[in-house]
C-alpha cells in the first residue's frame, strides 16, 4: 500500500528539482554577496538535496533513467563540458596573470614613463592602491592596470564605499573618489579623483617612490619677516604646504630668531616672500645650514630687500631691483598683463626637464643675475621671453617705461645651484653630499589661487623635491601628450565619402539581394 502510494507520487517528485535549483542559486548568490554564513550554506545544502532527490527519485518511476543511452551521452557531455570550462578558465587565469600588453599608439599613450616603471619594479613589499569610487573611471583603471602589469608587487582595488562602509571607515574615506596607497603597515591618502581630476601617473609614481625610499621630507618655512603664511590665516602658501603634506612631507614653521639655528631634521628650508630684513644672526644660521649640506629655497619678490645678499654672494647670485615686463603680448592670451611674464622656456635641470613648453607665470618678478663661481653648478631654470624688458620702479612705486625701447630679454627669473660640501666624504656608492639652493625672483607664483594654475605648483614642488635630494628620476613625469593632428578634407572629398558610404554601398547590397532573389525564382 505504502509502496503503491509512493509510486503514484513518485512521478511528481521530479518537480522538486526546480525549487532545488532555485535554492542553490539563492544560496550561491547570498554566499557570494554577503559571505558564507549559516543561512546561505543551509540554502545551498538544502537546494542540492532537493535537486538530487528530484533528479534521482523522480526519474526512478520511469525506471530506466540511468540506463538510457541519451542519459549516458548527456552525462558524458556534461562532464567533458565542465572539464573544458575548467581548462579554459585556467588558461585564461594564466593568460591574465602573465599578460603582455603592447602599446601600439603613436606616442605610447598607455605606457608608463621609464621612471615609473623603474619605481614599480623596485617595490619590495606588496603595495596596494585603493580607490573608493562606485564608478571606476576607465582612464584611471587603464593607468592602474598599466602599473599592475609593470610590477608584480603592485595591486589595486576599486571599492564601492556604499557597499563596504566598514572598509571605508577603516581607511578614513569620508567622500567618494579618495585614493589611498597601502604598503606594509602604512597607509596614506594620495589624492581625490573626480570628474575634473583624474589619477595622475606622476602623483602615483611619487607616492610609490616614497614607499620605496621610505623617507619623508621635513620642510621648514621661515617666519617672522612678513613671509607668506602656511597656516591659512591669510592668503599665503597654504595650498603649497598642503600639497607638500600630500606628498607626506612634514611642513613646519621656523622662527630663526627663537631657535637660533636651523633644526637638525630640516631637509629643506623655504624662505617664501619675506618683506622685512633678516637679522645678521639669522642669515648666519642659514649660511651655516647651507654650508653643511643643507638645501634652501629663496622666493624673493621685487621691491623687497630681505638682506640675504651676504648669503647669496658666495654663490654668484645677485637679485636685480628691476621688474621684468613681457611686452610681446604672449601673456594676454591667458589673461595676463605685461607685468606677469609667462615662462615657456625652461632650463635643462631635473626640476624643469620635462616641462617642455608648458606654461608657468610669475606676477611681478625680478631678474636673478648669476655669475660663474668656481665649484658652483648653476642652471637657469626659468627664462623670460626674448621680447621682455627689465624696468625699474620709481621711489613711489610707479612703473615708468618707454613703450618703444628695444626688448633686452631674455632674463633669468629662477636659478638652481649646487655645490659640494667642503670636507665631506661621500658614502660608498652614493653621490657626494651637496648644498643646494634655488632662487626665484618671485614668491607670489606659488601662493593660494595661483599655485594650482598652469605649472606653477609643479615648479614649486619639483624644486622642493630636488632640494630634498630625493632621487631625481621621479620628479618630472609629465602626462603623455598626443600629437595634434587634423583630418583635412575638401568639401568634394567629404561629399564623395558621404555619398559612397551612405548611398552607393547600401544600394549595391540591395541590388545584389534583388539579383539573388530573382535568380532563385
Amino acid at each position, binding site marked *: 500500500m505504502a509502496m503503491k502510494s509512493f509510486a503514484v507520487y513518485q512521478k511528481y517528485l521530479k518537480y522538486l528539482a526546480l525549487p532545488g535549483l532555485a535554492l542553490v542559486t539563492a544560496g550561491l548568490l547570498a554566499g557570494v554577496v554577503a559571505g558564507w554564513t549559516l543561512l546561505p550554506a543551509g540554502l545551498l545544502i538544502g537546494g542540492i538535496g532537493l535537486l538530487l532527490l528530484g533528479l534521482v527519485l523522480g526519474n526512478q518511476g520511469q525506471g530506466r533513467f540511468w540506463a538510457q*543511452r541519451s542519459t549516458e551521452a548527456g552525462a558524458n557531455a556534461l562532464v567533458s563540458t565542465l572539464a573544458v570550462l575548467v581548462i579554459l578558465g585556467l588558461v585564461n587565469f594564466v593568460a591574465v596573470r602573465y599578460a603582455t600588453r603592447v602599446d*601600439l599608439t603613436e606616442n605610447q599613450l598607455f605606457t608608463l614613463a621609464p621612471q615609473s616603471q623603474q619605481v614599480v619594479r623596485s617595490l619590495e613589499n606588496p603595495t596596494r592602491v585603493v580607490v573608493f569610487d562606485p564608478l571606476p573611471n576607465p582612464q584611471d583603471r587603464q593607468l592602474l592596470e598599466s602599473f599592475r602589469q609593470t610590477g608584480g608587487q603592485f595591486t589595486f582595488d576599486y571599492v564601492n564605499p556604499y557597499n563596504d562602509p566598514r572598509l571605508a571607515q577603516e581607511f578614513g574615506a569620508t567622500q567618494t573618489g579618495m585614493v589611498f596607497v597601502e604598503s606594509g603597515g602604512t597607509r596614506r591618502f594620495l589624492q581625490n579623483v573626480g570628474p575634473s581630476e583624474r589619477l595622475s601617473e606622476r602623483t602615483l609614481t611619487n607616492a610609490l617612490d616614497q614607499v620605496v625610499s621610505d623617507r619623508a621630507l621635513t620642510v621648514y618655512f621661515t617666519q617672522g619677516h612678513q613671509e607668506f603664511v602656511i597656516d591659512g590665516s591669510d592668503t599665503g602658501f597654504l595650498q603649497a604646504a598642503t600639497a607638500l603634506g600630500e606628498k607626506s612631507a612634514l611642513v613646519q614653521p621656523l622662527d630663526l630668531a627663537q631657535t637660533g639655528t636651523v633644526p637638525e631634521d630640516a631637509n629643506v628650508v623655504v624662505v617664501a616672500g619675506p618683506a622685512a630684513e633678516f637679522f645678521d644672526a639669522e642669515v648666519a644660521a642659514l649660511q651655516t645650514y647651507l654650508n653643511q649640506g643643507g638645501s634652501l629655497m629663496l622666493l624673493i619678490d621685487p621691491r623687497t630687500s630681505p638682506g640675504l645678499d651676504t648669503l647669496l654672494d658666495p654663490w654668484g647670485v645677485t637679485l636685480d631691483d628691476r621688474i621684468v615686463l613681457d611686452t610681446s603680448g604672449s601673456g594676454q*592670451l591667458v589673461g595676463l598683463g605685461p607685468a606677469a611674464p609667462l615662462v615657456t622656456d625652461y632650463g635643462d635641470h631635473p626640476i624643469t626637464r620635462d616641462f617642455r613648453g608648458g606654461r608657468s607665470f610669475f606676477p611681478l618678478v625680478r631678474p636673478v643675475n648669476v655669475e660663474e663661481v668656481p665649484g658652483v653648478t648653476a642652471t637657469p631654470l626659468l627664462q623670460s621671453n626674448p621680447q621682455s624688458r627689465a624696468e625699474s620702479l620709481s621711489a613711489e612705486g610707479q612703473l615708468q617705461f618707454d613703450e618703444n625701447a628695444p626688448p633686452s630679454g631674455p632674463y633669468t627669473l629662477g636659478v638652481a645651484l649646487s655645490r659640494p660640501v667642503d670636507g665631506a666624504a661621500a658614502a660608498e656608492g652614493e653621490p657626494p653630499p651637496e648644498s643646494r639652493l634655488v632662487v626665484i625672483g618671485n614668491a607670489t607664483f606659488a601662493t593660494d589661487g595661483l599655485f594650482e594654475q598652469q605649472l606653477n605648483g609643479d615648479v614649486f614642488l619639483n624644486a622642493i623635491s630636488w632640494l630634498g635630494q630625493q632621487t631625481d628620476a621621479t620628479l618630472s613625469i609629465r602626462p603623455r601628450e598626443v600629437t595634434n593632428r587634423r*583630418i583635412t578634407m575638401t568639401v568634394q572629398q567629404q561629399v564623395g565619402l558621404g555619398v559612397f558610404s551612405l548611398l552607393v554601398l547600401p544600394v549595391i547590397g540591395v541590388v545584389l539581394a534583388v539579383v539573388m532573389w530573382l535568380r532563385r525564382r
Partner: protein
Amino acid sequence: MTLLLKNILAIYQRELQSYFASPLPYIIAAVFWLLGGFFLVAILLGPQGILAQAAMADQAVQMGLPTPPPFDVAYEFNKAYVGLLGSLSMFVLPMLSMGLYADERKQGTLELLATSPVTNWAVALGKLLAVVSFYIAMVLPLMVCQAIALGAATPPTGSGVFFLSHLGLVLVAASVLALGMFISSLTESTVLAAIMTFALILLLWLVDAVAQGLPGVLGSAIAHLSLLKHFTDFTEGIFDTGGLVLFLSFIGLGLYLTAQSIETLRFQRS
C-alpha cells in the same frame, strides 16, 4: 590531416556559397552598410562630428583664447568609429549566426551532418570560418571608407592602431558568432536562436557592470569575461594577450559546445 583540412574547406566553401547565393545576407549587409555609412558621416562630418569639434578648437586659438589641449583627430575618429562598428555588429551578428544550424535542423539535413564521416567540430569550424569571412566582407568596404578619411590626416597617421582595432572587431565578432552558432544548434527556430544570441551578447557586453558590484577575485574574474572591456583595449591601440586569449577561448568554447550539442543529438532521438 589533409583529409580533415579538405573537409573543413569543403564545408567552408559550401557555406560561403550559400551566403553569396541567397538574398538575405545581402539585405543584412545593405542595412549594415547603411547604418555604418550613416555613423561614419555623423561621427566624422556631422555638425557635432569630430571634424567640427577640431575646427571649433582651431577657431578658438585664432580668436586668442587659451590653446586647447592637443587633439589627435585621426586617433579619436578611429577609436569612436570602430567602437561603434562593434556595437552595430552586435545587432547584426545574431542574424548571421541564427541560421547556421537551425536551418539545417529545420530542413532535416542536420542528421546527415551529424552522422557524416566529417567530425562535428570540423563542420562547426568550417561553418564558423565561413560566417566570419562573410562578416569580414561586410566590414571591408566600411574599412576602406575609413581608410580614405584617415588618409587625409595631417600629419599622416600610422596604421598600427587602425589594423589592431579592426582585428579586435573581427575577434569580437568571431567570439559572438561561435557562441551564436552553439545556440543555433540547440533549436529549430532561427528567430529563437537570434533572440537568445542577442540576449547572450547583451550579457557578455554588460558583464563588466555586474562585475563592478562584486568584490575581490570573483569580481575581477567576471570582469575578465567582458567582451566590451577587451574590445575597447583593442580599439584604443593596446594589444593585450589576456584579451586575445579570452576571445580565442570564447571561439573555442563555441566550437566545442556546438560539436557537443550535435554529438548528443545522435542519441536524443534513439
